[in-house]
C-alpha cells in the first residue's frame, strides 16, 4: 500500500473549503482540469480532500480519483492562490496524491469502478453521462466540510445540471424516488449545512451572466461566483453587492441575503435583486415577482426552508463614480467607532462602511499570518488603534469625513502601510512610537500629511518590502502581485472581497452574525461581551469581526468569530460545548431587544424584505 506522508496529510486536512482555487482572483489562471470537469474533485480543494480521504481510509482508489490525480499538471497555480487566502501551499498535496496513485499503479492495486444503478441511469438520462456520478472519490469531496460539528455524510450521487429544466427534472425525480436533495453553489459550505445521503446538486455548470443595462440588472446563473459577477460588472463600470468571492451569487442570496460593507447603501436580502427564478420543491419553475407564486418576500421568525433551487437571479447593478477611494478612520474605543459609523450612515456619507477591529485589519492587510499577529498587537499597543471605521467614499464624502474625524488614513497612506507592513512592526520603530509622549495620539501623527516623507523613509513601502514576509519561494510571485495597482486599491479589494477571504487563515472560523440596533451601544457591548465570555469559558480563540450599519444607520450587522483547529478533537469538543450556550442567550436577547436577530433565522430566507427581520411590528 502506498505511503501517506503525515506532513502532507496535515496540510490536506487544513483545507478550509473556501474554494478560492475555483476563481481566478489573482489572474494566475485556474487549475486546468477544474473548469473542464466542473466537479470540485478536479480542483485543488477536491484533491486535498482526496488525499485526506485516502489517509483516513475513507475512500478507495477509484477511477475518478486516478483521473483527478492524473489531470493535475503540477503547474503550481494553486500554491499562490491558496497561500494568499489561507497561508496553505497545496502543491505538496497535489504532488503526494499523484505519487500515491503512481505507487498504487506500480503495486497493481485495484481501481474501484462503481456500477451504475437505476437511479443514476435515470439521472444521467436527464443531465448526460458526464454530469452525474456515484464514484466514492467524487462523493467524498462533497461529503465533508471543516465545520467539525457536522460529521461526514456521503451522498449517493453528485449531479451537475446544465439547465433549469434539468434541475426541475432532477427535483421531480428525487421527489418520486424519495431522495433527499442538497444544493451546492460552489461545492463548499463552511457551516456544514449542505450534506445529504441523497443527491447533491452542484450548480457549477450553470454559469451564465446576462447584462440588461437598460434595467440595471444582471441575470445570473446559479454557478456564477460573486467574484466573477463583480468582475464582469466592473468591466461595464458597474458594481453589485457581492458576497465572499468564491460564494455563488444565487446561493449566497438565498442563504444569507448577501450582506457586505456595501450593505450600508445597497441594503441586503430583497434589496439585492429585482427578481429571482426558482425550481420549487414540486419541480415547478416560478419567479418571486409572480403574484400567484409563494410569498418569499415575507420573513418568518423561525428557521424556514429555502424557496427551492434558485436557477437565476436578476441582480441589481449600481453605478460607480470615478472618484471613489477608501478611507480608514482610526479609533481607540469601540463606542466612538460605532458612533462615527452610525453617523456616516445617518448622514448618507460614504458607500461601503464598516467598523473593523485590529484583528481584521491586520489579517486583511497582511499576506502572512505571522506578520498579521505582529501587526494586530502593534496597532493598539503602539499606535493606539483598536478599531477603524472603514469606508469607501467619493470626493465629497471624503471631504466630509476629513472634517468630522480627528485623523484619517487615506488611500495613499494605506498603500504605504500595506506595502511597508514588515517595517511597521520593526522593534526599533515600534519602541519609538510606543514611547511617544506627545499630546497627539500616535496614529494622529501618523496620519498628518506632512509626515508622509518620514513614513515612506521608515517603511520603505514597495512590493519587495511586503514580499519579505512570505516564504522565499513565493516572493517573486508576491512581488509581481503587489506591483499591480488593484492589490493596494481599497475600492477594488473591497468590492471583490479577496482580502477578507483571509479571515479564516489563522484557523477555521465559525462566524456568528447578529443584527443589532446601532443606537444601543449597551446591547452591542452585551453581544460582543457575551460571545467573548462564552469563548473564554470554553477556551476558544475568538475575536470581534466587523459591524456594518444598514438602513440609514438604524441597524447594523455584527460579526463575531470563533477560531478552531477543525482537525483537533479537543477544539471540536470546545465548540460543541459552547454552541448550546450561545443559542438560548442570543434568543433571549433577541426577544428582549428590538433589532437584535441572529442571522441563523435569515438562513434560507435571504429573499425576504430586510424590513421583515430588521424590525418587528
Amino acid at each position, binding site marked *: 500500500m502506498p505511503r501517506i506522508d503525515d506532513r502532507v496529510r496535515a496540510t490536506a486536512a487544513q483545507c478550509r473549503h473556501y474554494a478560492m482555487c475555483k476563481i481566478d482572483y489573482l489572474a494566475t489562471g485556474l487549475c486546468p482540469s477544474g473548469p473542464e470537469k466542473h466537479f470540485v474533485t478536479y480542483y485543488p480543494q477536491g484533491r486535498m480532500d482526496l488525499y485526506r480521504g485516502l489517509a483516513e481510509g475513507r475512500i478507495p482508489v477509484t477511477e475518478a480519483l486516478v483521473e483527478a490525480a492524473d489531470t493535475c499538471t503540477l503547474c503550481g497555480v494553486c500554491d499562490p492562490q491558496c497561500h494568499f487566502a489561507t497561508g496553505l501551499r497545496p502543491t505538496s498535496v497535489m504532488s503526494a496524491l499523484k505519487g500515491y496513485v503512481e505507487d498504487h499503479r506500480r503495486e497493481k492495486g485495484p481501481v474501484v469502478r462503481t456500477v451504475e444503478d437505476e437511479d443514476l441511469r435515470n439521472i444521467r438520462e436527464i443531465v448526460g453521462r458526464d454530469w452525474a456520478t456515484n464514484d466514492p472519490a467524487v462523493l467524498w469531496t462533497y461529503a465533508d466540510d471543516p465545520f467539525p460539528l457536522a460529521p461526514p455524510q456521503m451522498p449517493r450521487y453528485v449531479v451537475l445540471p446544465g439547465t433549469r429544466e434539468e434541475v426541475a427534472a432532477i427535483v421531480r425525480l428525487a421527489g418520486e424516488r424519495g431522495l433527499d436533495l442538497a444544493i451546492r453553489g460552489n461545492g463548499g459550505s463552511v457551516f456544514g449545512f449542505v450534506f445529504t445521503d441523497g443527491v447533491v446538486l452542484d450548480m457549477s455548470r450553470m454559469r451564465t451572466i446576462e447584462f440588461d443595462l437598460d434595467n440595471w440588472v444582471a441575470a445570473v446563473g446559479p454557478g456564477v461566483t460573486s467574484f466573477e459577477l463583480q468582475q464582469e460588472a466592473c468591466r461595464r463600470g458597474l458594481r453589485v453587492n457581492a458576497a465572499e468571492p468564491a460564494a455563488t451569487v444565487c446561493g449566497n442570496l438565498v442563504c444569507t441575503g448577501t450582506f457586505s460593507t456595501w450593505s450600508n447603501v445597497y441594503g441586503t436580502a430583497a434589496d439585492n435583486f429585482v427578481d429571482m427564478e426558482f425550481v420549487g420543491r414540486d419541480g415547478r419553475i416560478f419567479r418571486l415577482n409572480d403574484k400567484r407564486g409563494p410569498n418569499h418576500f415575507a420573513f418568518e421568525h423561525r428557521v424556514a426552508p429555502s424557496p427551492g433551487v434558485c436557477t437565476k437571479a436578476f441582480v441589481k447593478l449600481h453605478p460607480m463614480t470615478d472618484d471613489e477611494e477608501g478611507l480608514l478612520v482610526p479609533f481607540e474605543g469601540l463606542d466612538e467607532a460605532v458612533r462615527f459609523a452610525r453617523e456616516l450612515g445617518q448622514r448618507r456619507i460614504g458607500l461601503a462602511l464598516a467598523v473593523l477591529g485590529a484583528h481584521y485589519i491586520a489579517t486583511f492587510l497582511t499576506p502572512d499570518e505571522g506578520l498579521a499577529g505582529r501587526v494586530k498587537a502593534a496597532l493598539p499597543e503602539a499606535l493606539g488603534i483598536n478599531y477603524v471605521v472603514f469606508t469607501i467614499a467619493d470626493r465629497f464624502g471624503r471631504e466630509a469625513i476629513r472634517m468630522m474625524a480627528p485623523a484619517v488614513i487615506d488611500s495613499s497612506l494605506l498603500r504605504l502601510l500595506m506595502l511597508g507592513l514588515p517595517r511597521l512592526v520593526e*522593534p*526599533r*520603530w515600534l*519602541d*519609538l512610537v510606543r*514611547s*511617544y*509622549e*506627545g*499630546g*497627539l*495620539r500616535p496614529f494622529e*501623527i501618523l496620519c*498628518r500629511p*506632512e*509626515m*508622509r*516623507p*518620514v513614513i*515612506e*523613509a*521608515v517603511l*520603505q513601502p514597495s512590493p519587495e518590502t511586503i514580499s519579505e514576509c512570505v516564504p522565499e519561494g513565493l516572493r517573486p510571485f508576491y512581488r509581481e502581485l503587489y506591483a499591480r495597482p488593484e492589490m493596494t486599491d481599497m475600492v477594488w479589494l473591497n468590492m471583490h472581497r479577496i482580502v477578507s477571504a483571509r479571515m479564516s487563515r489563522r484557523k477555521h472560523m465559525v462566524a456568528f452574525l447578529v443584527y443589532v440596533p446601532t443606537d444601543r451601544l449597551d446591547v452591542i457591548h452585551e453581544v460582543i461581551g457575551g460571545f467573548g465570555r462564552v469563548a473564554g469559558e470554553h477556551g476558544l480563540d475568538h475575536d470581534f469581526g466587523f459591524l456594518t450599519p444598514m438602513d440609514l444607520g438604524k441597524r447594523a450587522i455584527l460579526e463575531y468569530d470563533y477560531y478552531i483547529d477543525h482537525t483537533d478533537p479537543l477544539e471540536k469538543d470546545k465548540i460543541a460545548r459552547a454552541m448550546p450556550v450561545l443559542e438560548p442567550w442570543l434568543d433571549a436577547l433577541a426577544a428582549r431587544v428590538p433589532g437584535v436577530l441572529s442571522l441563523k433565522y435569515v438562513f434560507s430566507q435571504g429573499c425576504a424584505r430586510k424590513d421583515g427581520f430588521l424590525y418587528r411590528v
Partner: protein
Amino acid sequence: MRIETGPLLEKRAARASRILVTGAAGFLGSHIAVALLRAGHRVAVLARASKGRSARDRFARLAAWFGLDERTTAALEVVEGDVLDAGWAAAESRGGLAGIDEIVHCASSTAFSERKRAEVEAANVDGLRNVLDLAVRSGCGFFHHVSTAYVAGRRTGPCREDWVEAGPFTNVYEETKARGEIMARDACRHEGLRLNVYRPTIVYGDSRTGRTLRFNALYYPVKAAVYLRDIYLTDIRERGGRKAAGLGIRLSESGGLVMPIRIEVAPAGGLNLVPVDHCVRAFMAIFEDGLDGGIYHIANPRPTRIEDLVAFGKRRFQMEGIETCGPEAFAAQPKNALEVLYDSYLEVYRPYMQDTRSFDTANAAPILGKRGLVCPVFDYEVFLRCMDYAVEADWGSKLFDR
C-alpha cells in the same frame, strides 16, 4: 504622632523598621529600594506582575541589573500587588503588609499627555489614596511621598518648598501630583503620620556611569534623532538617498549626516536635570535627617540650556543641521516633516525646556549641605556617559541582556 522621634530612630538603628517601597519596579523606586537595602534596612517592595513576569521575576532581573549580591537580594521582601485593585489596602493590611512601619511611595505615572488623563489620575490619585489607606490601616508611622518639583505649576521665578493648593498647572501630571500631595498631607495630619514630600525635578541616568532603566524624557528626542539618522543613512548608502534628498538630508563632508531640524526655544530658561545617583543620595539624606516631616526640593541649581543639549547630541551622534531658533524662523519657512514630528513631541516638554522657575531649597539645602551633596552639572561628559550607555543598552531593548 503615631511614633515619637526616639522610638523611630531606635527602630531604624536596629534595622527593625519594615519599610515598604511602592513602584519599586520603576526607575526611581527601584533605585531608592536598592539604596535602602544597601543601607541595611528591612525593605519590602511592592510591584505588579507585568508582561507575563511575576513581581519576583521582575525584581530578580532588577537585582542583577543593580549587581546586588545574593545575601542582599535574599533580604528583600517582594510583595506582588496592584495598588489600583479594589480592596487592595484592606486585604494587605490584614495580610502580607500588616505591620509596615514606613512607606516610601514611588508608584506614579509620569505621562504628561491629556489623552492619558484617566491612566495618570488612576496612578497618581486613586493609587495614592489606596496606599494612604494602607498606611492608616497598617500601623505605619512615617509616609515618604515621592512627588515632583513641578507641582509648582505655571509659576515663574522662585518656587518654595510649600504646599501648592491650586493651579494653574501645565499638564495632568503636575495637577495630579499636586492633588496627591494635598491628599497625603491631609491624611497624614489626620492620622498622626509623619510625612516627607520629596520633589525632584527631571531625573535621568547615573552621572557617574550613565546607567539608567528608562529612556524617556531626556533620552527620547535623542533616540528619535538617532533612529532617523540611521534610516536616512541607510537610504543614502543603500538606496541612492532619494527619500533623504526630499527632506534636504545629506551626508556632510565630515561624514556625518545633515538633518535640517529647527527646534524652537525661548531665549531664557533651560532644563532642570537631576541624575538618579544624586537624587537617591539626597533622598537617603532627607530620609535619615528629615525626621519631623517636610517638603524637600531635589533640583539642579544650574539648569541645562537646550542649545547645549542640541550641541551635545550633534557631537556625540555625528549629526549636523539640527539648530535651535526662535518662533519667527517658522514664519519664513514652514516646518518640514521632521520638524512636525519633533514639534508634536516636544510640545508637552516645552514648559520644561524653557523653564524659568527656580526651586528654593531652604529645607533640603541644610541636610544636603551637611553631607556635602551637590547636584552634578549636566555637561558633555555626563551626556556622553548617559548616551553611551543608552546605545549599549539599545535604548532599553538590551537592558537586561547582560
